[in-house]
Protein backbone atom coordinates (compact mmCIF):
# COMPACT_ATOMS: atom_id res chain seq x y z
CA UNK A 1 0.00 0.00 0.00
CA UNK A 2 2.74 2.39 1.02
CA UNK A 3 4.57 1.72 -2.23
CA UNK A 4 1.46 2.61 -4.26
CA UNK A 5 1.10 5.88 -2.32
CA UNK A 6 4.73 6.76 -2.93
CA UNK A 7 4.40 6.03 -6.65
CA UNK A 8 1.35 8.29 -6.93
CA UNK A 9 3.18 10.99 -5.01
CA UNK A 10 6.31 10.73 -7.15
CA UNK A 11 4.20 10.87 -10.30
CA UNK A 12 2.71 14.15 -9.10
CA UNK A 13 6.21 15.45 -8.37
CA UNK A 14 7.61 14.49 -11.76
CA UNK A 15 4.72 15.80 -13.83
CA UNK A 16 4.55 19.11 -11.97
CA UNK A 17 7.98 20.50 -12.84
CA UNK A 18 8.98 22.03 -16.15
CA UNK A 19 12.39 20.31 -16.27
CA UNK A 20 10.69 16.95 -16.95
CA UNK A 21 9.05 18.29 -20.09
CA UNK A 22 12.08 20.07 -21.51
CA UNK A 23 14.66 17.37 -20.82
CA UNK A 24 12.53 14.60 -22.26
CA UNK A 25 11.39 16.57 -25.31
CA UNK A 26 15.00 17.54 -25.96
CA UNK A 27 15.95 13.84 -25.81
CA UNK A 28 13.34 13.01 -28.47
CA UNK A 29 14.02 15.96 -30.76
CA UNK A 30 17.81 15.79 -30.67
CA UNK A 31 18.00 12.01 -31.14
CA UNK A 32 15.49 11.93 -34.00
CA UNK A 33 16.62 15.08 -35.82
CA UNK A 34 20.32 14.28 -35.64
CA UNK A 35 19.61 10.67 -36.67
CA UNK A 36 17.69 11.89 -39.72
CA UNK A 37 20.44 14.30 -40.68
CA UNK A 38 23.20 11.72 -40.45
CA UNK A 39 21.04 9.14 -42.26
CA UNK A 40 20.51 11.58 -45.14
CA UNK A 41 24.23 12.39 -45.31
CA UNK A 42 25.17 8.69 -45.23
CA UNK A 43 22.78 8.00 -48.07
CA UNK A 44 24.47 10.66 -50.17
CA UNK A 45 28.01 9.62 -49.24
CA UNK A 46 27.46 5.87 -49.56
CA UNK A 47 29.06 5.63 -53.00
CA UNK A 48 32.23 7.38 -51.74
CA UNK A 49 32.71 5.09 -48.72
CA UNK A 50 35.65 2.69 -48.61
CA UNK A 51 34.61 -0.88 -49.40
CA UNK A 52 35.37 -1.98 -45.85
CA UNK A 53 32.86 0.49 -44.45
CA UNK A 54 30.30 -0.33 -47.07
CA UNK A 55 30.56 -3.99 -46.11
CA UNK A 56 29.69 -3.32 -42.48
CA UNK A 57 27.20 -0.52 -43.22
CA UNK A 58 24.48 -0.79 -40.58
CA UNK A 59 21.47 1.37 -41.50
CA UNK A 60 19.86 0.74 -38.08
CA UNK A 61 22.87 2.10 -36.18
CA UNK A 62 23.13 5.06 -38.55
CA UNK A 63 19.56 6.11 -37.72
CA UNK A 64 20.51 6.01 -34.01
CA UNK A 65 23.48 8.34 -34.49
CA UNK A 66 21.63 11.12 -32.67
CA UNK A 67 21.59 9.13 -29.47
CA UNK A 68 25.16 10.16 -28.59
CA UNK A 69 23.82 13.66 -28.06
CA UNK A 70 20.23 12.75 -27.16
CA UNK A 71 21.37 10.58 -24.26
CA UNK A 72 22.81 13.71 -22.61
CA UNK A 73 19.26 15.03 -22.22
CA UNK A 74 18.29 11.70 -20.64
CA UNK A 75 21.23 12.09 -18.24
CA UNK A 76 20.03 15.58 -17.29
CA UNK A 77 16.52 14.19 -16.73
CA UNK A 78 17.81 11.39 -14.48
CA UNK A 79 20.08 13.70 -12.50
CA UNK A 80 17.44 16.40 -11.96
CA UNK A 81 14.74 13.97 -10.83
CA UNK A 82 16.90 12.94 -7.87
CA UNK A 83 19.18 15.88 -7.15
CA UNK A 84 16.56 18.67 -7.07
CA UNK A 85 15.30 17.01 -3.87
CA UNK A 86 18.64 18.01 -2.35
CA UNK A 87 19.25 21.34 -4.08
CA UNK A 88 15.81 22.64 -3.06
CA UNK A 89 15.82 21.18 0.48
CA UNK A 90 12.65 19.25 -0.44
CA UNK A 91 14.42 16.04 0.67
CA UNK A 92 13.68 16.88 4.33
CA UNK A 93 9.97 17.25 3.61
CA UNK A 94 9.96 14.15 1.39
CA UNK A 95 11.69 11.92 3.94
CA UNK A 96 9.51 13.20 6.76
CA UNK A 97 6.53 12.09 4.64
CA UNK A 98 8.15 8.78 3.60
CA UNK A 99 10.66 7.82 6.30
CA UNK A 100 11.43 4.42 4.78
CA UNK A 101 14.23 5.48 2.54
CA UNK A 102 14.26 2.43 0.31
CA UNK A 103 10.56 2.90 -0.48
CA UNK A 104 11.20 6.58 -1.18
CA UNK A 105 14.19 6.10 -3.51
CA UNK A 106 12.92 3.08 -5.42
CA UNK A 107 9.43 4.58 -5.74
CA UNK A 108 10.99 7.67 -7.27
CA UNK A 109 13.29 5.65 -9.57
CA UNK A 110 10.40 3.40 -10.66
CA UNK A 111 8.24 6.36 -11.73
CA UNK A 112 11.08 8.18 -13.50
CA UNK A 113 12.28 4.97 -15.20
CA UNK A 114 8.76 4.14 -16.44
CA UNK A 115 8.49 7.61 -17.94
CA UNK A 116 11.99 7.34 -19.45
CA UNK A 117 11.05 3.96 -20.92
CA UNK A 118 7.94 5.36 -22.60
CA UNK A 119 9.85 8.34 -24.00
CA UNK A 120 12.85 6.14 -24.89
CA UNK A 121 10.69 3.74 -26.91
CA UNK A 122 8.97 6.55 -28.76
CA UNK A 123 12.36 8.12 -29.50
CA UNK A 124 13.90 4.87 -30.65
CA UNK A 125 11.08 3.88 -32.99
CA UNK A 126 10.75 7.42 -34.35
CA UNK A 127 14.52 7.66 -34.90
CA UNK A 128 14.50 4.33 -36.72
CA UNK A 129 11.56 4.93 -39.06
CA UNK A 130 12.40 8.57 -39.85
CA UNK A 131 16.09 7.71 -40.23
CA UNK A 132 15.34 4.84 -42.61
CA UNK A 133 13.15 7.16 -44.66
CA UNK A 134 16.25 9.32 -45.24
CA UNK A 135 18.42 6.35 -46.21
CA UNK A 136 16.70 5.68 -49.52
CA UNK A 137 17.79 2.41 -51.09
CA UNK A 138 20.17 1.57 -48.24
CA UNK A 139 17.43 1.37 -45.66
CA UNK A 140 16.64 -1.54 -43.36
CA UNK A 141 13.14 -2.81 -42.62
CA UNK A 142 11.77 -3.42 -39.13
CA UNK A 143 11.17 -7.06 -40.11
CA UNK A 144 14.81 -7.70 -41.09
CA UNK A 145 16.69 -10.09 -38.77
CA UNK A 146 17.82 -8.38 -35.58
CA UNK A 147 16.31 -5.00 -36.41
CA UNK A 148 13.31 -5.09 -34.09
CA UNK A 149 15.65 -6.18 -31.26
CA UNK A 150 17.93 -3.23 -32.01
CA UNK A 151 15.10 -0.68 -32.08
CA UNK A 152 13.50 -2.07 -28.93
CA UNK A 153 16.97 -2.17 -27.35
CA UNK A 154 17.47 1.51 -28.21
CA UNK A 155 14.51 2.38 -25.97
CA UNK A 156 15.90 0.21 -23.17
CA UNK A 157 19.32 1.82 -23.60
CA UNK A 158 17.92 5.31 -23.06
CA UNK A 159 16.00 4.13 -19.98
CA UNK A 160 19.10 2.54 -18.47
CA UNK A 161 21.20 5.67 -19.10
CA UNK A 162 18.59 7.72 -17.20
CA UNK A 163 18.50 5.17 -14.35
CA UNK A 164 22.29 5.10 -14.09
CA UNK A 165 22.22 8.89 -13.76
CA UNK A 166 19.61 8.64 -11.00
CA UNK A 167 21.86 6.27 -9.06
CA UNK A 168 24.88 8.54 -9.46
CA UNK A 169 22.84 11.61 -8.45
CA UNK A 170 21.55 9.75 -5.36
CA UNK A 171 25.17 9.20 -4.35
CA UNK A 172 26.50 12.67 -5.17
CA UNK A 173 23.34 14.72 -4.31
CA UNK A 174 24.56 17.88 -6.07
CA UNK A 175 23.12 18.45 -9.56
CA UNK A 176 26.21 20.34 -10.76
CA UNK A 177 28.63 17.69 -9.52
CA UNK A 178 26.55 14.85 -11.01
CA UNK A 179 26.22 16.53 -14.39
CA UNK A 180 29.83 17.66 -14.31
CA UNK A 181 30.92 14.03 -14.04
CA UNK A 182 28.32 12.25 -16.17
CA UNK A 183 28.13 14.55 -19.21
CA UNK A 184 31.84 14.63 -20.10
CA UNK A 185 32.16 10.97 -19.19
CA UNK A 186 29.52 9.76 -21.63
CA UNK A 187 30.18 12.34 -24.31
CA UNK A 188 33.98 12.26 -24.39
CA UNK A 189 35.85 10.02 -22.00
CA UNK A 190 33.98 6.81 -22.73
CA UNK A 191 34.48 7.34 -26.50
CA UNK A 192 38.16 8.02 -26.07
CA UNK A 193 38.66 4.95 -23.86
CA UNK A 194 36.74 2.85 -26.37
CA UNK A 195 38.78 3.99 -29.39
CA UNK A 196 42.31 4.09 -28.05
CA UNK A 197 43.93 0.68 -28.56
CA UNK A 198 45.47 0.55 -25.08
CA UNK A 199 42.16 1.06 -23.25
CA UNK A 200 39.77 -0.49 -25.73
CA UNK A 201 39.46 -3.78 -23.82
CA UNK A 202 38.36 -1.97 -20.66
CA UNK A 203 36.40 0.71 -22.48
CA UNK A 204 33.95 -1.69 -23.99
CA UNK A 205 32.79 -2.76 -20.54
CA UNK A 206 31.69 0.78 -19.68
CA UNK A 207 27.90 1.13 -19.38
CA UNK A 208 27.25 3.05 -22.59
CA UNK A 209 29.57 1.03 -24.82
CA UNK A 210 28.33 -2.33 -23.53
CA UNK A 211 24.70 -1.18 -23.67
CA UNK A 212 24.83 0.29 -27.16
CA UNK A 213 25.90 -3.10 -28.60
CA UNK A 214 22.17 -3.94 -28.66
CA UNK A 215 21.53 -1.30 -31.36
CA UNK A 216 24.00 -2.85 -33.81
CA UNK A 217 22.56 -5.27 -36.37
CA UNK A 218 25.47 -5.76 -38.80
CA UNK A 219 28.68 -6.62 -36.91
CA UNK A 220 31.78 -4.53 -37.58
CA UNK A 221 34.46 -6.12 -39.71
CA UNK A 222 36.81 -8.14 -37.50
CA UNK A 223 34.61 -7.49 -34.49
CA UNK A 224 36.06 -9.19 -31.42
CA UNK A 225 33.61 -7.89 -28.82
CA UNK A 226 33.42 -10.69 -26.24
CA UNK A 227 29.66 -10.29 -25.60
CA UNK A 228 26.49 -10.34 -27.67
CA UNK A 229 23.75 -7.67 -27.82
CA UNK A 230 21.74 -8.87 -24.80
CA UNK A 231 24.82 -9.66 -22.72
CA UNK A 232 26.01 -6.12 -23.47
CA UNK A 233 22.72 -4.70 -22.22
CA UNK A 234 23.11 -6.99 -19.19
CA UNK A 235 26.50 -5.44 -18.44
CA UNK A 236 24.91 -2.01 -18.59
CA UNK A 237 22.09 -3.20 -16.28
CA UNK A 238 24.73 -4.32 -13.77
CA UNK A 239 26.23 -0.82 -13.80
CA UNK A 240 22.75 0.59 -13.17
CA UNK A 241 22.13 -1.84 -10.31
CA UNK A 242 25.48 -0.90 -8.75
CA UNK A 243 24.80 2.84 -9.03
CA UNK A 244 21.32 2.49 -7.50
CA UNK A 245 22.58 0.21 -4.72
CA UNK A 246 25.27 2.78 -3.92
CA UNK A 247 22.68 5.56 -3.90
CA UNK A 248 20.40 3.53 -1.63
CA UNK A 249 23.12 2.63 0.86
CA UNK A 250 24.30 6.23 1.15
CA UNK A 251 20.73 7.55 1.47
CA UNK A 252 20.05 5.02 4.22
CA UNK A 253 23.20 5.90 6.14
CA UNK A 254 23.35 9.66 5.73
CA UNK A 255 21.46 12.38 7.52
CA UNK A 256 18.89 13.92 5.22
CA UNK A 257 20.38 17.14 3.89
Amino acid at each position, binding site marked *: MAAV*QVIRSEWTKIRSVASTVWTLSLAVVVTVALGMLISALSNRQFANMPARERLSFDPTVVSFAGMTLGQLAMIVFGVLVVSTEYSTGMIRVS*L*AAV*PRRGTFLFGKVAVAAALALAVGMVTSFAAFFLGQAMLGSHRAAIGDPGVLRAVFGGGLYMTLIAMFSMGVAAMLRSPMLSLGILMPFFFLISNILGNVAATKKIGRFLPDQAGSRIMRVVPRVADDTPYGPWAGLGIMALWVAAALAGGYLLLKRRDAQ
Partner: protein
Amino acid sequence: MIELDGLTKRYGEKVAVDHLTFAVRPGIVTGFLGPNGAGKSTTMRMILGLDRPTAGDVRIDGTHYDRLKDPLTYIGALLDAKAVHGGRSAWNHLLCLAQSNGIPERRVAEVLETVGLTAVARKKAKGFSYGMGQRLGIAAALLGDPRILMFDEPVNGLDPEGIHWIRNLMKSLAAEGRTVFVSSHLMSEMALTADHLVVIGQGRLLADTSMADFIRTNSRSYVRIRSPQPERLLDVLHQAGITVVEAGGGALEVEGGKAEQIGELAARYGLVLHELSPRQASLEEAFMRLTAEAVEYHAQAGPGPVPQDWGAGWKGV
Protein backbone atom coordinates in the same frame (compact mmCIF):
# COMPACT_ATOMS: atom_id res chain seq x y z
CA MET B 1 3.38 13.07 22.93
CA ILE B 2 7.05 13.28 21.96
CA GLU B 3 9.52 11.55 24.27
CA LEU B 4 13.26 12.06 24.13
CA ASP B 5 15.52 9.75 26.08
CA GLY B 6 19.20 10.60 26.29
CA LEU B 7 19.09 11.91 22.72
CA THR B 8 22.61 12.75 21.52
CA LYS B 9 24.09 13.92 18.24
CA ARG B 10 27.79 14.37 17.56
CA TYR B 11 29.37 15.69 14.41
CA GLY B 12 32.90 14.38 14.71
CA GLU B 13 34.28 16.03 17.83
CA LYS B 14 31.49 18.54 18.20
CA VAL B 15 28.50 17.67 20.36
CA ALA B 16 25.39 19.29 18.89
CA VAL B 17 22.82 17.62 21.13
CA ASP B 18 23.90 16.22 24.46
CA HIS B 19 21.81 13.65 26.33
CA LEU B 20 18.45 15.41 26.05
CA THR B 21 15.68 13.80 28.04
CA PHE B 22 12.25 15.39 28.19
CA ALA B 23 8.68 14.87 27.06
CA VAL B 24 6.39 17.17 25.08
CA ARG B 25 2.83 16.79 26.28
CA PRO B 26 -0.51 17.30 24.54
CA GLY B 27 -2.95 20.16 25.15
CA ILE B 28 -0.34 22.87 25.67
CA VAL B 29 2.17 24.85 23.68
CA THR B 30 5.68 23.76 24.64
CA GLY B 31 8.37 26.29 23.83
CA PHE B 32 11.81 25.02 22.84
CA LEU B 33 14.18 27.81 23.67
CA GLY B 34 17.87 28.24 23.15
CA PRO B 35 20.35 30.59 21.52
CA ASN B 36 21.17 30.11 17.84
CA GLY B 37 23.31 27.01 17.44
CA ALA B 38 22.08 25.43 20.70
CA GLY B 39 20.92 22.30 18.86
CA LYS B 40 17.19 23.00 18.49
CA SER B 41 16.96 22.27 14.76
CA THR B 42 19.15 19.18 15.06
CA THR B 43 16.89 17.88 17.82
CA MET B 44 13.81 18.48 15.65
CA ARG B 45 15.40 16.72 12.68
CA MET B 46 16.13 13.71 14.90
CA ILE B 47 12.51 13.68 16.09
CA LEU B 48 11.48 13.34 12.42
CA GLY B 49 14.03 10.63 11.72
CA LEU B 50 15.91 12.87 9.28
CA ASP B 51 19.15 12.82 11.25
CA ARG B 52 20.24 9.68 13.06
CA PRO B 53 21.01 10.08 16.76
CA THR B 54 24.54 9.13 17.82
CA ALA B 55 22.99 7.79 21.01
CA GLY B 56 19.64 7.78 22.77
CA ASP B 57 16.14 7.47 21.51
CA VAL B 58 13.12 9.50 20.50
CA ARG B 59 9.55 8.24 20.17
CA ILE B 60 6.31 9.64 18.81
CA ASP B 61 3.32 8.30 20.74
CA GLY B 62 5.58 5.46 21.85
CA THR B 63 6.76 4.54 18.34
CA HIS B 64 9.89 5.30 16.34
CA TYR B 65 9.21 7.79 13.56
CA ASP B 66 10.16 5.43 10.74
CA ARG B 67 7.71 2.82 12.09
CA LEU B 68 4.74 5.18 11.81
CA LYS B 69 2.31 4.31 9.05
CA ASP B 70 1.51 7.56 7.20
CA PRO B 71 3.60 9.72 9.58
CA LEU B 72 2.06 13.02 8.40
CA THR B 73 -1.19 11.93 10.07
CA TYR B 74 0.63 11.67 13.44
CA ILE B 75 3.00 14.60 13.36
CA GLY B 76 3.23 17.63 11.10
CA ALA B 77 6.33 19.77 11.04
CA LEU B 78 7.57 23.05 9.66
CA LEU B 79 11.35 22.88 9.66
CA ASP B 80 12.42 25.24 6.92
CA ALA B 81 10.12 27.41 4.85
CA LYS B 82 12.29 27.25 1.76
CA ALA B 83 12.33 23.44 1.54
CA VAL B 84 10.12 23.50 -1.55
CA HIS B 85 10.85 22.90 -5.25
CA GLY B 86 10.47 26.43 -6.63
CA GLY B 87 9.14 25.21 -9.96
CA ARG B 88 6.22 23.38 -8.39
CA SER B 89 2.92 25.06 -7.54
CA ALA B 90 1.70 25.25 -3.94
CA TRP B 91 -1.15 22.91 -4.88
CA ASN B 92 1.10 20.24 -6.38
CA HIS B 93 3.59 20.53 -3.52
CA LEU B 94 0.84 19.72 -1.03
CA LEU B 95 -0.78 17.16 -3.34
CA CYS B 96 2.37 15.03 -3.62
CA LEU B 97 2.75 15.08 0.17
CA ALA B 98 -0.92 14.15 0.65
CA GLN B 99 -0.68 11.26 -1.81
CA SER B 100 2.42 9.85 -0.14
CA ASN B 101 0.45 9.48 3.10
CA GLY B 102 -2.93 8.48 1.72
CA ILE B 103 -4.48 11.82 2.69
CA PRO B 104 -7.56 12.76 0.60
CA GLU B 105 -7.05 15.52 -1.98
CA ARG B 106 -9.74 17.75 -0.44
CA ARG B 107 -7.38 18.37 2.50
CA VAL B 108 -5.08 20.26 0.11
CA ALA B 109 -7.82 22.81 -0.55
CA GLU B 110 -8.72 22.94 3.14
CA VAL B 111 -5.22 23.68 4.43
CA LEU B 112 -4.58 26.23 1.68
CA GLU B 113 -7.75 27.97 2.87
CA THR B 114 -6.59 27.78 6.51
CA VAL B 115 -3.27 29.48 5.77
CA GLY B 116 -4.77 31.94 3.30
CA LEU B 117 -2.98 30.79 0.14
CA THR B 118 -6.03 29.72 -1.90
CA ALA B 119 -5.58 32.61 -4.33
CA VAL B 120 -2.00 31.57 -5.21
CA ALA B 121 -2.54 27.79 -5.07
CA ARG B 122 -1.58 27.34 -8.73
CA LYS B 123 1.36 29.74 -8.63
CA LYS B 124 4.93 28.47 -8.58
CA ALA B 125 6.49 28.50 -5.13
CA LYS B 126 9.59 30.39 -6.30
CA GLY B 127 7.51 33.55 -6.62
CA PHE B 128 6.44 33.37 -2.97
CA SER B 129 7.61 35.83 -0.35
CA TYR B 130 9.24 34.46 2.79
CA GLY B 131 5.98 34.82 4.69
CA MET B 132 4.04 32.95 2.00
CA GLY B 133 6.68 30.18 2.04
CA GLN B 134 6.24 29.99 5.80
CA ARG B 135 2.47 29.67 5.36
CA LEU B 136 2.94 26.94 2.76
CA GLY B 137 5.19 25.07 5.21
CA ILE B 138 2.49 25.38 7.88
CA ALA B 139 -0.12 24.12 5.41
CA ALA B 140 2.06 21.05 4.83
CA ALA B 141 2.30 20.50 8.60
CA LEU B 142 -1.49 20.68 8.98
CA LEU B 143 -2.20 18.47 5.95
CA GLY B 144 -2.63 15.14 7.75
CA ASP B 145 -4.68 16.70 10.59
CA PRO B 146 -2.00 15.41 13.01
CA ARG B 147 -2.24 15.27 16.79
CA ILE B 148 1.31 16.58 17.10
CA LEU B 149 2.69 19.75 15.49
CA MET B 150 6.23 20.95 15.47
CA PHE B 151 7.41 24.37 14.26
CA ASP B 152 11.03 25.47 13.98
CA GLU B 153 11.33 29.25 14.45
CA PRO B 154 7.93 29.91 12.82
CA VAL B 155 7.88 33.67 13.39
CA ASN B 156 11.28 34.34 11.83
CA GLY B 157 11.00 36.78 8.97
CA LEU B 158 7.27 37.35 9.33
CA ASP B 159 5.51 40.69 9.47
CA PRO B 160 3.61 41.62 12.66
CA GLU B 161 0.33 40.42 11.19
CA GLY B 162 1.84 37.04 10.30
CA ILE B 163 3.37 36.70 13.76
CA HIS B 164 0.03 37.41 15.36
CA TRP B 165 -1.62 34.83 13.11
CA ILE B 166 0.89 32.10 13.97
CA ARG B 167 0.64 32.75 17.71
CA ASN B 168 -3.14 32.38 17.58
CA LEU B 169 -2.89 29.29 15.40
CA MET B 170 -0.55 27.56 17.83
CA LYS B 171 -2.73 28.42 20.81
CA SER B 172 -5.88 27.17 19.10
CA LEU B 173 -4.17 23.94 18.02
CA ALA B 174 -3.14 23.32 21.63
CA ALA B 175 -6.64 24.19 22.82
CA GLU B 176 -7.95 21.40 20.57
CA GLY B 177 -5.86 19.01 22.67
CA ARG B 178 -2.95 18.71 20.24
CA THR B 179 0.72 18.60 21.15
CA VAL B 180 2.42 21.78 19.96
CA PHE B 181 6.20 22.03 20.07
CA VAL B 182 7.69 25.30 18.86
CA SER B 183 11.27 26.51 18.87
CA SER B 184 12.56 30.05 19.19
CA HIS B 185 15.67 31.90 20.20
CA LEU B 186 13.58 34.74 21.62
CA MET B 187 12.34 34.53 25.19
CA SER B 188 9.88 37.35 24.58
CA GLU B 189 8.22 35.30 21.85
CA MET B 190 7.94 32.24 24.08
CA ALA B 191 6.52 34.29 26.94
CA LEU B 192 3.59 35.19 24.68
CA THR B 193 2.76 31.72 23.38
CA ALA B 194 4.22 28.90 25.46
CA ASP B 195 2.64 27.26 28.50
CA HIS B 196 5.67 25.07 29.10
CA LEU B 197 9.31 25.74 28.48
CA VAL B 198 12.24 23.53 27.56
CA VAL B 199 15.50 25.49 27.51
CA ILE B 200 18.71 24.17 25.99
CA GLY B 201 22.20 25.62 25.61
CA GLN B 202 25.20 23.94 23.99
CA GLY B 203 22.91 21.00 23.27
CA ARG B 204 22.21 20.36 26.96
CA LEU B 205 18.96 20.60 28.87
CA LEU B 206 18.98 23.71 31.09
CA ALA B 207 15.35 23.87 32.16
CA ASP B 208 12.15 21.89 31.72
CA THR B 209 9.51 23.86 33.55
CA SER B 210 6.13 25.50 33.26
CA MET B 211 6.18 29.06 31.96
CA ALA B 212 4.63 30.32 35.21
CA ASP B 213 7.36 28.68 37.32
CA PHE B 214 10.05 30.03 35.03
CA ILE B 215 8.73 33.56 35.41
CA ARG B 216 8.41 33.22 39.18
CA THR B 217 11.95 31.95 39.73
CA ASN B 218 13.67 34.06 37.13
CA SER B 219 12.18 37.50 37.36
CA ARG B 220 14.67 39.02 39.76
CA SER B 221 13.76 42.40 41.24
CA TYR B 222 16.30 45.02 42.21
CA VAL B 223 16.61 48.72 42.96
CA ARG B 224 18.68 51.00 40.80
CA ILE B 225 20.33 53.99 42.40
CA ARG B 226 22.32 56.96 41.15
CA SER B 227 24.00 59.45 43.38
CA PRO B 228 26.66 62.17 43.03
CA GLN B 229 28.11 60.85 46.30
CA PRO B 230 28.55 57.16 45.52
CA GLU B 231 31.37 56.55 48.01
CA ARG B 232 29.40 57.74 51.00
CA LEU B 233 26.26 56.01 49.80
CA LEU B 234 28.16 52.72 49.52
CA ASP B 235 29.40 53.09 53.09
CA VAL B 236 25.93 53.84 54.40
CA LEU B 237 24.33 50.91 52.62
CA HIS B 238 27.17 48.64 53.67
CA GLN B 239 26.73 49.57 57.32
CA ALA B 240 23.01 48.85 57.04
CA GLY B 241 23.92 45.34 55.81
CA ILE B 242 22.68 45.89 52.27
CA THR B 243 24.69 44.34 49.43
CA VAL B 244 25.33 46.69 46.53
CA VAL B 245 26.79 46.01 43.13
CA GLU B 246 28.11 48.61 40.71
CA ALA B 247 26.16 48.37 37.50
CA GLY B 248 28.34 50.61 35.36
CA GLY B 249 27.73 54.19 34.24
CA GLY B 250 27.82 55.31 37.85
CA ALA B 251 24.70 53.36 38.76
CA LEU B 252 24.38 51.01 41.71
CA GLU B 253 22.04 48.06 42.04
CA VAL B 254 20.62 46.51 45.16
CA GLU B 255 19.38 42.98 44.68
CA GLY B 256 15.97 42.34 46.23
CA GLY B 257 16.15 45.65 48.10
CA LYS B 258 13.26 47.93 49.01
CA ALA B 259 13.32 51.38 47.43
CA GLU B 260 11.63 52.88 50.52
CA GLN B 261 14.30 51.59 52.90
CA ILE B 262 17.13 52.90 50.70
CA GLY B 263 15.48 56.28 50.23
CA GLU B 264 14.97 56.69 53.97
CA LEU B 265 18.60 55.75 54.66
CA ALA B 266 19.82 58.31 52.13
CA ALA B 267 17.59 60.99 53.67
CA ARG B 268 18.84 60.24 57.18
CA TYR B 269 22.46 60.75 56.11
CA GLY B 270 21.64 63.73 53.91
CA LEU B 271 22.70 62.08 50.66
CA VAL B 272 21.56 63.33 47.28
CA LEU B 273 19.94 60.74 45.00
CA HIS B 274 19.46 61.31 41.28
CA GLU B 275 17.69 58.05 40.74
CA LEU B 276 15.92 55.53 42.92
CA SER B 277 13.92 53.05 40.88
CA PRO B 278 12.58 49.59 41.66
CA ARG B 279 13.09 47.32 38.65
CA GLN B 280 12.19 43.88 37.38
CA ALA B 281 14.70 41.97 35.24
CA SER B 282 13.14 40.90 31.95
CA LEU B 283 12.68 37.27 31.07
CA GLU B 284 15.07 37.86 28.19
CA GLU B 285 17.77 38.71 30.73
CA ALA B 286 16.87 35.67 32.81
CA PHE B 287 17.21 33.49 29.71
CA MET B 288 20.52 35.03 28.75
CA ARG B 289 21.81 34.52 32.28
CA LEU B 290 20.68 30.90 32.21
CA THR B 291 22.39 30.12 28.91
CA ALA B 292 25.49 32.16 29.80
CA GLU B 293 25.88 30.15 32.99
CA ALA B 294 25.65 26.96 30.97
CA VAL B 295 28.44 28.11 28.71
CA GLU B 296 30.64 29.11 31.64
CA TYR B 297 29.96 25.89 33.47
CA HIS B 298 30.88 23.92 30.41
CA ALA B 299 34.00 25.91 29.78
CA GLN B 300 35.33 25.26 33.26
CA ALA B 301 33.94 21.81 33.85
CA GLY B 302 36.18 19.55 31.80
CA PRO B 303 35.95 15.84 32.56
CA GLY B 304 33.78 15.14 35.55
CA PRO B 305 30.01 15.17 35.91
CA VAL B 306 29.67 16.03 32.22
CA PRO B 307 30.50 13.35 29.64
CA GLN B 308 34.19 12.65 29.19
CA ASP B 309 34.40 13.90 25.64
CA TRP B 310 32.79 17.22 26.35
CA GLY B 311 36.09 19.09 26.81
CA ALA B 312 37.21 17.91 23.41
CA GLY B 313 33.95 19.14 21.92
CA TRP B 314 34.44 22.57 23.39
CA LYS B 315 37.84 23.05 21.76
CA GLY B 316 36.28 22.33 18.41
CA VAL B 317 33.69 25.07 18.75
